[in-house]
């Protein structure tokens, strides 16, 4: 099956549109970095205007904060870039008429689906690694490093410089699971279609619809919100909140709600298993002769 996955990866990276995502991420991150390098002081001054009773000294606009800002903005849009490839994995073959030929090879349909899904997952992970290199490492290089000073809506979190990097490792690992869930959804929808446009647009529509639903504080929807994968996709931010002791001192190396992260990971992994399982089930039943 590894051979089949390699072939799928080769096919993904032979398509020029695969690199659109890498190009788009590079351009977006560069735009944010240049903007903040040129006029980051205005951004920081605006944020600090909310803490008028305090004097804050130090390099607030450092690489760690820049990376957090970029992730906040990009991790909402990255699903679109992932969908472009994942939702095309099977529907693209059907559209080109190569599906029937491919299935004459000595592989089971389950192996075929899994190989395609693993290839889509590898693409997703590579996109996130590229995002991490640009957003974290390049920002660290350009803006330097210091404590991470985070403005949340109701409070401020100050994380020591030595306590930040592992949180980014955790956040990117979490984001990888979240984005794989998106890839799994797109992949699942591609099983039913004869062209790529339908699954791509459907996946994005579902994500937008569920995101709107999950941000509405209406009690009726609160019942289903904990089970929607989009509710959990943004919980990488939990890595950047720390516990405090009875004296309100932040405890280094802690996460405010580790259980929240675990719960989110369980929901996301269950969605991945569900989508991939359903993809295998429906693809095995699919009529490829028509």
């Amino acid at each position, binding site marked *: 099956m590894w051979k089949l996955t390699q072939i799928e990866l080769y096919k993904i990276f032979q398509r020029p549109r695969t690199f659109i995502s890498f190009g788009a991420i590079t351009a977006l991150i560069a735009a944010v970095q240049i903007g903040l390098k040129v006029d980051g002081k205005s951004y920081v001054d605006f*944020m600090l205007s*909310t*803490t*008028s*009773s*305090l*004097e*804050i*000294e*130090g*390099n*607030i606009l450092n690489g760690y904060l820049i990376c957090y800002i970029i992730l*906040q903005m990009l991790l*909402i849009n990255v699903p679109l870039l992932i969908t472009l490839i994942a939702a095309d994995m099977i529907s693209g073959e059907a559209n080109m008429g190569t599906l029937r030929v491919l299935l004459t090879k000595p592989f089971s349909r389950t192996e075929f689906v899994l190989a395609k899904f693993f290839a889509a997952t590898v693409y997703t992970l590579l996109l996130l690694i590229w995002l991490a290199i640009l957003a974290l490492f390049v920002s660290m290089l350009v803006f330097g490093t*210091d*404590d991470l*000073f985070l*403005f*949340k*809506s*109701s*409070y*401020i*979190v*100050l*994380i*020591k*410089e030595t*306590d930040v990097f592992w949180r980014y490792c955790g956040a990117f690992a979490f984001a990888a699971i979240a984005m794989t869930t998106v890839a799994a959804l797109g992949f699942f929808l591609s099983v039913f279609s004869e062209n790529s446009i339908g699954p791509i647009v459907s996946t994005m529509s579902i994500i937008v619809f569920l995101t709107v639903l999950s*941000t509405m*504080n209406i*009690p009726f929807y*609160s019942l289903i919100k904990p089970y929607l994968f989009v509710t959990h996709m*943004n919980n990488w*931010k939990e890595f950047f*909140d*720390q516990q*405090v002791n009875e*004296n*309100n*001192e*932040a*405890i*280094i190396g802690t996460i405010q709600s580790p259980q929240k992260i675990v719960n989110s990971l369980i929901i996301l992994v269950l969605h991945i298993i569900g989508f991939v399982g359903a993809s295998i089930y429906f693809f095995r039943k699919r009529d490829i002769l028509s």
Partner: protein
Amino acid sequence: MRKIFVFFITYFIVAATTAQDMTPLVKKARAKLDLVSDYSAEGVMKTDIIFIKAPISKIKVYFKKPNKFKLKKDGGISLLPKGGISVNMSTIVAVDDYVALAAGTAIIDGYKTTIVKLLPNNEASNIVLTTMYIDEENMLVRKAITTTKENGTYEMQMQYGAYAKYGLPDKVYFTFNTKDYKLPKGITLEFDEPGQKNELDKLKNKKGKVEISYTNYVINKGISEDVFK
């Protein structure tokens, strides 16, 4: 009747004179601090502000006569009450032109203290009123409450140890008023779950506190002007 009248008049004159006569006490407290031309000290700072989650941090402070004061964090970002932390005892008693009034006595940390209210004569002064709790026995300022024009009221409580002979505290508890902090969720991209808001509302109107524990004072060894830039 006449004798009683004379007695009360005399009593009020004496009482009034006593109330106006706290300048010598302030000068005595200042004389102790005057032994120090400059100092640097290492310390540990704890920040307790309700809307800030910050760890304990190592700091270094520098003072040079007449009123230069600098607090530097040992790397990293520091959070300090605006204009407040620089109001240390040396700078408070460095004010020359003031009226010192007696305002009774109080027990602070088990020490009997005399309350003195300092009113600056200079109307341009940022400090409106300073209330000092002076331990006359040890000639130390145990507590000071300073009201400023621009930055509200600050309260400092000091604990002394090895450097008491110089009037330098081992520990300073700094209390100040904080304003509410709020950022639009559209900026932070956070959407609270119902129920979280009430918990945060309960925590409003709490004072901010900064606690600094000083160690390793280096006194009168000279400090470069560059430190204060």
